[in-house]
Structures are given as C-alpha cells and as structure tokens.
C-alpha cells in the first residue's frame, strides 16, 4: 500500500514537476532553468542580456520543487548536465549548444521577436 502510494506519489510528482516546468515555461517570453552555482548558466544568461532580452530565470537549487523539476528536465533532454535549459515563447530550445547554434544560424533572434522578447 505504502509502496504503491509512494510510487504513485513519485509518478505524480514527476508529472507534476513536468507540468510545472511547462507552466513556468509558457508564462514568460524567455525562461531559463538554471542553478545558481552553474557557470554555463551564467554564460547563457549573459548571452540573452547581450541580446537585449531580460529572461525569467528559475534557480532550481533555490526552488522547493527544484529537484523534481531537475529530474523532469533531465528526462526531457537526457544531458549529462541538466541545466541550463531555455524556453522561448513556451517552446523548448534546449541546452546551451542548441542556443548557440540557433543564434549563429540566425534563427534565435526571429524567435525572440516572435515571442515578444525583442522589439528591435
């Protein structure tokens, strides 16, 4: 009984976390899930600031549901390091290499404009 409950609760908590992630991601134009200690997250934040975007940053180590969300994100992306994860306009962009690639091939800025994060 307890086991089931635990399993059920774990399952629900993971889907809960995923749902929370999705909710938060759609709430703002640019959402970054980060860890305050992660330097790569710092790089991503700096990039968006340079572009003139002010992203909504969720530090998962400072969030009560942080661990669950981390797990959900790792399941989603399957990276060795979970964060940073970037959502633009509710759509998943991905980890930093995807962000870099999309910026270099010129697709990031139009997406930002579409999401309303950029007005120039």
């Amino acid at each position: 009984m307890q086991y089931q409950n635990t399993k059920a609760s774990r399952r629900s908590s993971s889907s809960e976390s995923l749902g929370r992630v999705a909710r938060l991601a759609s709430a703002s134009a640019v959402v970054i899930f980060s860890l305050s200690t992660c330097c790569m997250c710092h790089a991503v934040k700096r990039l968006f600031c340079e572009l003139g975007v002010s992203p909504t940053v969720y530090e998962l180590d400072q969030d009560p549901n942080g661990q669950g969300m981390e797990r959900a994100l790792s399941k989603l992306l399957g990276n060795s390091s979970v964060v940073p994860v970037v959502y633009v306009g509710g759509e998943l962009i991905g980890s930093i290499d995807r962000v870099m690639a999309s910026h270099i091939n010129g697709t990031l800025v139009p997406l930002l404009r579409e999401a309303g994060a950029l007005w120039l």
Partner: protein
Amino acid sequence: MESQRIGDTSSTLSADHNMPYALLRGLNPPNNTSFMYHSTQNYSNQEPPAFDFGELEEAIVLQGVKMSNDDSVRSSLYGSGTNRPAATLEMFPSWPTRFPRGSSKSGGGKENSDSGSALNTTISSRSEANLEPESPISQAFEQQQQLQLPQQQFQEMASDSPRTGVSHTEPASKSNYEKRKAAGSTSDRVTDPKTLRRLAQNREAARKSRLRKKAYVQQLETSRIRLAQLEQELQRARSQGIFMGGGAAGSNISPGAAMFDMEYSRWLDDDQRLISELRTALQAHLVDGDLRVIVDGYVAHYDEFFRLKGVAAKSDVFHLISGIWTTPAERCFLWMGGFRPSELIKMLIAQLDPLTQQQVVGIYSLQQSSQQAEEALSQGLEQLQQSLIETIASGSVNDGMHQMAVALGKLANLEGFLRQADNLRQQTLHQLRRTLTIRQAARCFMVIGEYYGRLRALSSLWASRPRETMMADDNSCQTTTELQMIQAAQHHFSNM
C-alpha cells in the same frame, strides 16, 4: 683417368650443392650453354645478382678450399666449409694465378682464368703447398663475373682432361707448367661462338648488377639527406617546445594529449592536401556539382577536427586549452583552446568580395552573433575561474580534502566550455557555407586554410630566425622593437 676421377666426383657430390653437380653435368659444351642460360635466368629474376654470384663463388671455393691445411686464412674466411673429399677437387683444372703467360689471352678470359685458376690453385693445393692462396681468393671474391669461371674451367677441363689429370699427380713446378699450357689452350677457345655468347652474357649480367648497385647507392644517399632534414626539424621542434613549456613540454605529456598531437599533425597534412585540391578546383573552373563535393569535403574535414578535440578534451582538457599543440603564432590569438570565430569572419570579409547585399548582411550579422556568443562564453569562464579561486583560497585547514573535491568538480566544467567554444567554431563554419555560393564558399575555405598555413609558417620562421641579434649591442634596438611588436600584438588581440 680423368673420367674415372669425374666418376669419383659424382659419387661424392651427391646432394650437397646442385651447382657443382650441374657443373659436372655441364662438361659437354651443349650442356654448358644450357647451364649458362639457366643461371643467368635465375640471376635476372632474383635480387642482387652479385650476391648470388658470391654465394656460387663461395660454394665452388668451399668445395676445394677445405683441403688446404696450411692455409689458416682461407679456413678462417670460409668457416667450416664443406667436408668434401679431395675427389671433388679434380673437377677444377689447375691453372696458374699470377703467371704472365695468362695475359696473352683475351681480357675477359684473363680475368676469368685468373679467378678460375685462383680457385683451382687453392683447390689443388692439397697436393701443392707452394701456391699463393690469399690473393687469388680475394681476387675471386672481388670478381663479379663468377659464373663464367666454372664454365670456362669445365670447357677447358673437358678439353684438357688428360693434362689436368697429369697436373694433379705431378709436383708443383711441373703442374705450373701444365697450368701454363692449359691456360695457353684457352686462347684457342676464345673465338668459339658459345664462349663468346657466354662472355657477352656475363658482361651483360655484370653491367646489370653494376646498375643495380648504383641505384641502391643513390637511394641510400637520398635517405641520408632526408634523415638529416628530419633530425633538423626534430631539433627545431624540440627547442620550440622547451622554449614554451619550460622544459616540461616534452616529458609530461599525457597519453590522451600525445594521441591528439599525433592525430592533429595528420589532420594538418590532410588540410594541406585539401587546400591544394580547392585551389586547383577553383583554377580549373569545375562545375558547381563537383565543386560542392570538394567544399563539403573540407567542411567535413573541420567537423572531424572538432570531433578529435572533443575526444581529447575528455582526457586532457588542459592540454587543449593551453594551446601547446598549436604553433606559437597561432597561440598568440588563442581563445578557449582554438581560433576566435569573430576574428576569422573579420579576416574573411575583406577577402570575400564580391558579395551580394544579402550576403553582406548575413556575414555581418554572423560576425555579430559570434561575437556575442564569444562574450557570453568568456564571461561564463571568468565566473568559473572566480568560483575556483574562492574554493581553493577559502576554507579552513580541516576542510582541505573537501575543498579539493569541490575544486575538482568545478574544474570538470572546463571541458564543457571548451566543447561549447568548439561548437561555436563549427557552427560558424557551417553558417559560412550556407550563406555563400559554392564558388564563394570554395574561395572562403581556401582563404581560411591559407591563412592558418601562413600563421604556422610564420611560427617556424620565427623559431629559426638568427638569434645573434640578441647579443650585439648595436642591434639591441632592433631586438627591442621586435619584442615590443610581439607584445603589442598580444595586447591587441587579448583585448578583443
């Protein structure tokens, strides 16, 4: 009597050496010729004929040489030799070695008979003690035309059998006389067509072996020169390494780093080849389809380079980040273990004309994007360094190991930054390929390859420049300006 002896010989010959048996069989002129053919054919099929002749010579000499007791030199030369009884010696007629009478014969004949007689004298010295074995033997070994002598001997033996038989039994002086006589009889044979043919064949064989020897020596010479060049290069590279790494560069290299260095040098060779391919393709004005294949090949070549770096980063990220695998001039402009994409674009903009308006916009925005990405990564790395400093500097003495563990964890992030930097470089090259037409892209990559090639050449020129200017007082100004130039360049590029 002679036939009887020959019969003895045949029994003793058995299977030891095919050659002597063949020689024996070759007593009759027709057989002789066939034997000659056979041997020359063999010789032309194999490598250094001289060697074969030497073996043959040795075999023949060994046949009889063993018998001489008072010739220690000979035995030392030939080692154990064969255990052939004296009977086989009967095969060779005894001829004089240094008698002036031999000179009356034809030139080739003289030589051959000398060597032949050399053999025979040694062989038959069993009965005669006062022969000169050493010089004939050395002579024999120097002769290239060994094959002819047994032939000639057998020719003469066949004709002079009675005389040969006589020479064996008679004392030295008499046998010498006989040899002279035997040698004299050889002159009759010189005009024989078969002998002439044999002589010609021998000459041909000798000529071929001389040519082969010449070719071999030439090959050796070029290899020697190449070896000297390689040693020079190695010395230069080593001195460079010592200059840069304070003596530790050569010794403390990790296996992953060594592997990368090796693969990188191979990649550089491929790079050179592909660049020249691009150049010829552009000059040849190939159709776009063919050019596309070459251009895509060059992009794949760089993809491979970034893959190699990724693999190396897993084992030794410090090696890559330090840039010790690059040349000094490249190291000047090093950013995160490689080239700075925005710098490359800046260099290319001037070289890529003419461009359409759209392309110009595309290239400029590419430059801007890469600059922004570079800045972001640099800032991220700076934060990593800061955090690392704090971890190592702070903390009580008790927490030492814990601090180290934390610091190690932070250091692991370096690999991530290097990978992102390489990712940025790769994306920049791919975007260039997309923005430009095929011909423009071909030119662009050729320019990139040439540019880095020149940087590397600059490094080696710099390394091999004369250093005496450092010593002279009146040249000190020149040296100072050189140093200032380098420092200025470094500052300029580090501030970008």
